[in-house]
């Protein structure tokens, strides 16, 4: 027995409200991130990730209050990503109660930022989020994209993950842009290639449509944790059902 593989529901938050729809049978306000986080905690989520997609300054302040409220009543790890560009952004989020921050575009624009952040706050709270897209199939090769997958960078995804870990990233959140939103499952080759290349834990993301996909991410993708949004939001499956399926597949989970 050892450390359990983690299930992480992800909430997209815009201006303090959960977007992309969340449907629980017995929830009063499915747009309230605090209420949704509370529900996932009750279902047995191992962590919760908030992705702040707010563009406005006011919206970002609202996000800080959301983190404070969630941290005051949900006692599992919280990760916040989206718009993390400066050391000060990280300090504010950690003080509000976030345990980890996810850095994406800012790492590409300025790789040294990751080193600074890890030196200042410790690797344990620095997650580097990587959005990767396949650019060739023989041999398979993936490049990283920024700005929600719209902007190509020409950087090799595997080399980038290794570099970010050498700069102090404590965890990698890997999203396949080819699979995101498809419900066809993770890009397992991509996931396994990067998971095997780095010493730190990898969270697989992008493409989950059924419970078997979560199991595959662990057993075939070699991920330490699996992240999903819509299958949980729309009530297709509960976290408890996901854990049941993973346990049935011989994966160690927290129950």
């Amino acid at each position, binding site marked *: 027995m050892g450390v359990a593989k983690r299930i992480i529901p992800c909430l997209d938050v815009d201006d303090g409200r959960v977007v992309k729809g969340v449907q629980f049978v017995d929830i009063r306000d499915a747009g309230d991130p605090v209420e949704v986080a509370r529900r996932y905690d009750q279902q047995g989520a191992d962590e919760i990730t908030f992705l702040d997609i707010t563009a406005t300054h006011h919206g970002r302040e609202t996000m800080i209050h959301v983190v404070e409220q969630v941290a005051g009543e949900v006692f599992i790890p919280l990760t916040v990503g989206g718009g993390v560009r400066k050391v000060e952004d990280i300090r504010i989020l950690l003080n509000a109660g976030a345990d980890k921050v996810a850095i994406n575009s800012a790492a590409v624009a300025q790789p040294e930022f990751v080193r600074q952040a890890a030196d200042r706050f*410790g690797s*344990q709270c620095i997650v580097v989020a990587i959005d990767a897209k396949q650019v060739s199939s023989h041999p398979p090769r993936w490049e990283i994209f920024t700005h929600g997958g719209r902007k190509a960078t020409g950087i090799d995804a595997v080399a980038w993950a290794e570099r970010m870990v050498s700069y102090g990233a404590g*965890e990698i959140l890997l999203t396949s842009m080819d699979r995101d939103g498809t419900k066809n499952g993770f890009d397992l080759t991509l996931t396994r290639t990067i998971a095997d290349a780095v010493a*730190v*834990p990898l969270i697989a993301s992008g493409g989950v449509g059924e419970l078997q996909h979560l199991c595959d991410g662990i057993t075939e993708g070699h991920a330490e944790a699996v992240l999903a949004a819509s299958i949980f939001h729309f009530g297709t499956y509960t976290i408890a059902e996901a854990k049941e399926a993973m346990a049935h597949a011989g994966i160690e989970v*927290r129950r």
Partner: protein
Amino acid sequence: MTLTRSTVVVIDYGMGNLHSVAKALEHSSDRLKVIVSSDRQQILAADRVVLPGVGAIRDCLGEMRRLELIATIIEVAQNKPFLGVCVGMQALMSESEENGGTQALNLFPGKVRRFSQPLQDARGTLLKVPHMGWNQVEQCDLQHPLWAGIANASRFYFVHSYYVEPQQQSTIAATATHGVTFAAAISRGNLFATQFHPEKSQKAGLQLYRNFLQWDGTLA
């Protein structure tokens, strides 16, 4: 008659997220005043003390030194119920391998070591460092008041690359296994410390905080 509320000070030396610890303590008792402070008088006056910590141990100890808190921490560790968490646990040891060797508070003889790599489990699967996630905690002394109401082998949330290796086996209060079996908690008299984060360990973690807040620092 006015009842004086019991106070617990969370020592603030500017490192990491003390607020999660304070919020979880507040959540664990309604008859408690939680103070986040670096003020020596407040720390000395508290009924209980929590020493949290995340990040690099050199920076943590450096800040404790800069704020002139070392003597105060050692003093309250002599008699008050005292709880160290994560790097706040590691800081209680004699020294750490981290940052090229760092002298620590020496309240528990022993070292802080890094997980060696490559690290494997019993089946030969490669393990990740940091050790991050929910692992089972095997209690050594089931009668210790801080384990009250917590099933043996309950899972707690860990995130660390270094672990403590106390010289005295008798001070190991719990173990966990990640390639190696290491001390997940240590205790001696009024001192208790955990490598895991009770404030992030949901029900089991909050129960441990509740137990700490009711603990008088003895083993009876």
